[in-house]
């Protein structure tokens, strides 16, 4: 620091000390919407599973499926192999269902004034978050409309552009509605990619899942607009257990986006979701996530436990599933969006930017399981650690015996900001076919004082300089995000990094 002998203290510039300074509090989505909710009491037993199923008027087969999963879950142990540290979750302290009372079966015009006020408050939540829940909403700069399914705690509150989509033959609705309207489709695919037996949180989700989105793209249809689901945890003491199922028939295409936020709270909240994707012959599913759950404060108090199982099955020949994620939120992240490349010539992609600032811990990565011949996968992972953040990339590439000519390329880069954060890379590579080719590149770098000084000497503020370096680091991932999401992701990174330097 340049210190002058005069009474004017020099302003600080980038230094080791200031780089090490703790993170700021820039979480814009941390507000709470005060509306009445219809909630289950805290605790989990068979009656809660039945309660949730009854709330949704589910058919008998689905209740049986839930109960089977619940029985299984009770016999399972919480996974502890991830490189994250947190006190045991008290599953009896969580409420497993919360729905805004304003959502009745009544039509909008039949609501009484008080119900109407509650409904309007709910919609304002999404407006405040910048989510277009009314159909006049075309996102600025985006000529194609984006259809939105908005999930608030345990239920879907609105799905837009349904009529336009129906005309194209696309089904986009809440999973609860799909169970009622398209039971045969749901029954056929639910749990087909992530069975309840898969892992502890997948079993829990199967037992108590509340809402999520269902997407069905018929054969030969290119979905005419981007589909998106916006997940909001609002009620105190609840967990969110949504489940999303996307099925793309032969030669179809869909691009789906999801966003997530939660209020700022001192206690931790659990989010244990399951996402299943099925791509048939020559179908393509592009799944993008901007995850901004409340990350907790600078001391690590509060924040979401994000324990999620996401998997795509490239079932058909020439099918393609692409995961793109920008993960800036959550106190603890345990998440490995994966692809099972079953169809010959199928393609799996994983592009990820994951940030751990403050006391955030993330153990995230992907699995690419090559079963079919000439299957290809690409993994580009960018991990950023700042503050006291802990970041582990964990990735598996498995080439089965039958996967003749399979290829994988992995590039795994870590960027450290300051000297109190940690980054690890844990790759698992299993190759059972000699014709396969697997490439793995990894790098770790640190934002240097020299880089900051250079950029600031050209007039950029310290925050702009950090943002520019970080955005440069993430370029390969932002480039594959849908345009409006890329802008959003950059802004989010900037906000999440606020205060990470000086």
């Amino acid at each position, binding site marked *: 620091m340049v210190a002058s002998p005069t009474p004017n203290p020099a302003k600080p510039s980038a230094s080791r000390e200031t780089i090490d300074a703790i993170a700021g509090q820039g979480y814009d989505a941390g507000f709470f919407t005060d509306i009445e909710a219809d909630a289950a009491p805290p605790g989990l037993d068979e009656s809660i599973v039945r309660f949730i199923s009854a709330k949704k008027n589910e058919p008998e087969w689905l209740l049986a499926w839930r109960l089977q999963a619940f029985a299984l879950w009770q016999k399972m142990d919480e996974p502890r192999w991830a490189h994250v540290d947190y006190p045991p979750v008290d599953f009896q302290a969580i409420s497993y269902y919360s729905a805004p009372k304003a959502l009745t079966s009544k039509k909008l015009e039949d609501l009484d004034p008080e119900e109407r006020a509650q409904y309007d408050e709910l919609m304002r939540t999404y407006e405040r978050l910048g989510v277009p829940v009314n159909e006049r909403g075309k996102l600025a700069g985006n000529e194609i409309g984006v259809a939105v399914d908005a999930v608030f705690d345990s239920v879907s509150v609105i799905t837009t552009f349904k009529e336009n989509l129906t005309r194209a033959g696309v089904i986009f609705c809440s999973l609860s509605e799909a169970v009622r309207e398209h039971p045969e489709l749901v029954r056929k695919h639910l749990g087909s990619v992530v069975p309840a037996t898969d892992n502890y949180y997948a079993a829990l989700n199967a037992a108590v899942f509340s809402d999520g989105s269902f997407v069905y793209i018929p054969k030969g249809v290119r979905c005419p607009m981007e589909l998106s689901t916006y997940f909001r945890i609002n009620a105190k003491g609840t967990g969110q257990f949504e489940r999303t199922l996307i099925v793309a028939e032969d030669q179809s295409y869909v691009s789906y986006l999801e966003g997530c936020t939660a209020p700022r709270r001192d206690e931790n909240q659990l989010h244990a979701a399951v996402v299943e994707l099925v791509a048939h012959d020559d179908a393509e599913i592009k799944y993008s996530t901007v995850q901004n759950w409340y990350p907790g404060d600078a001391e690590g108090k509060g924040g979401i436990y994000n324990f999620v199982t996401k998997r795509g099955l490239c079932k058909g020949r020439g099918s393609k599933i692409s995961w793109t994620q920008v993960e800036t939120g959550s106190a603890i992240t345990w998440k490995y969006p994966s692809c099972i490349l079953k169809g010959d010539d199928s393609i799996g992609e994983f592009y990820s930017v994951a940030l751990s600032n403050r006391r955030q811990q993330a153990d995230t990565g992907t699995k690419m399981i090559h079963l079919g011949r000439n299957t290809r996968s690409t993994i580009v992972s960018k991990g950023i650690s700042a503050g006291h953040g802990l970041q582990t990339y964990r990735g598996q590439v498995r080439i089965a015996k039958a996967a003749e000519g399979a290829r994988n390329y992995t590039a795994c880069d870590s960027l450290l900001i300051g000297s109190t954060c940690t980054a690890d890379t844990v790759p698992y590579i299993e190759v059972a076919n000699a014709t396969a080719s697997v490439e793995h590149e990894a790098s770790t770098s640190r934002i240097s004082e020299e880089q900051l000084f250079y950029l600031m000497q050209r007039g950029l503020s310290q925050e702009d300089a950090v943002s520019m*370096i970080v955005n*440069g680091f993430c370029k390969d991932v932002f480039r594959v995000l849908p345009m409006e999401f890329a802008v959003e992701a950059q802004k989010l990174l900037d906000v999440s990094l606020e205060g990470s330097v000086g």
Partner: protein
Amino acid sequence: MLTIENLHVEVDGKAILKGLSLTVPAGEVHAIMGPNGSGKSTLSYVLAGKEGYVVTAGSIRIGDFDLLEMSVDERAQAGVFLAFQYPVEVPGVNNKVFLRHALNAKRKAAGQPELDAVSFIKLLNEKLALVGMSKELAGRELNSGYSGGEKKKNEILQMAMLDPKLAILDEIDSGLDIDALKAVAAGVNALRSPQRSMLLITHYQRLLDAIAPDHVHVLLDGRIVHAGGPELALELEERGYDWLRAA
């Protein structure tokens, strides 16, 4: 105009500059020469405001600005430009995007509106021609994979774009072959302006053949010990610095 009075600077508790005074009027080019360890690079860093260079006495002013009260970015916005001896690589950051951000940060500080994309490209093309740099090079990642000569040219391009009041060129000739040196010098000469003070920090006379200074100062053991016209550089080339130590 740059005015430095009785500047004392410490690095890691060690005195490097010990009462340096120097004035560079607008429109003039002054050269600072001196042996290794005399404090030349320290002078350039302390002018830019780099961390770790502790001013224990003295003042630095540019026009009405007291530089010691300003942070690195504020100084840059006010018109201090340092051409680095070793320009830093910033992977993934597009050079043009960076230039536009830097230019707009300066304009914003001056209360001017941001430059739109069309005007920016027009200005950029104008300056590219001035410094003799290709459009292709200007659009690459900032200093990443540039040759030594390309990096230095890019420094001169940035200077041309940012139009500083004070340009400090820290051993701009180091690591350049003759042709690259000529090209960089031509760019610098094109940027001489009645509004601009320039400070050339160098070891070698050869740079001063290409960029003729108005004055030459000898920096020795943290102080300016001697000053003269361009002919002083020739004398130093011939006699070295020892005769000045005795004096």
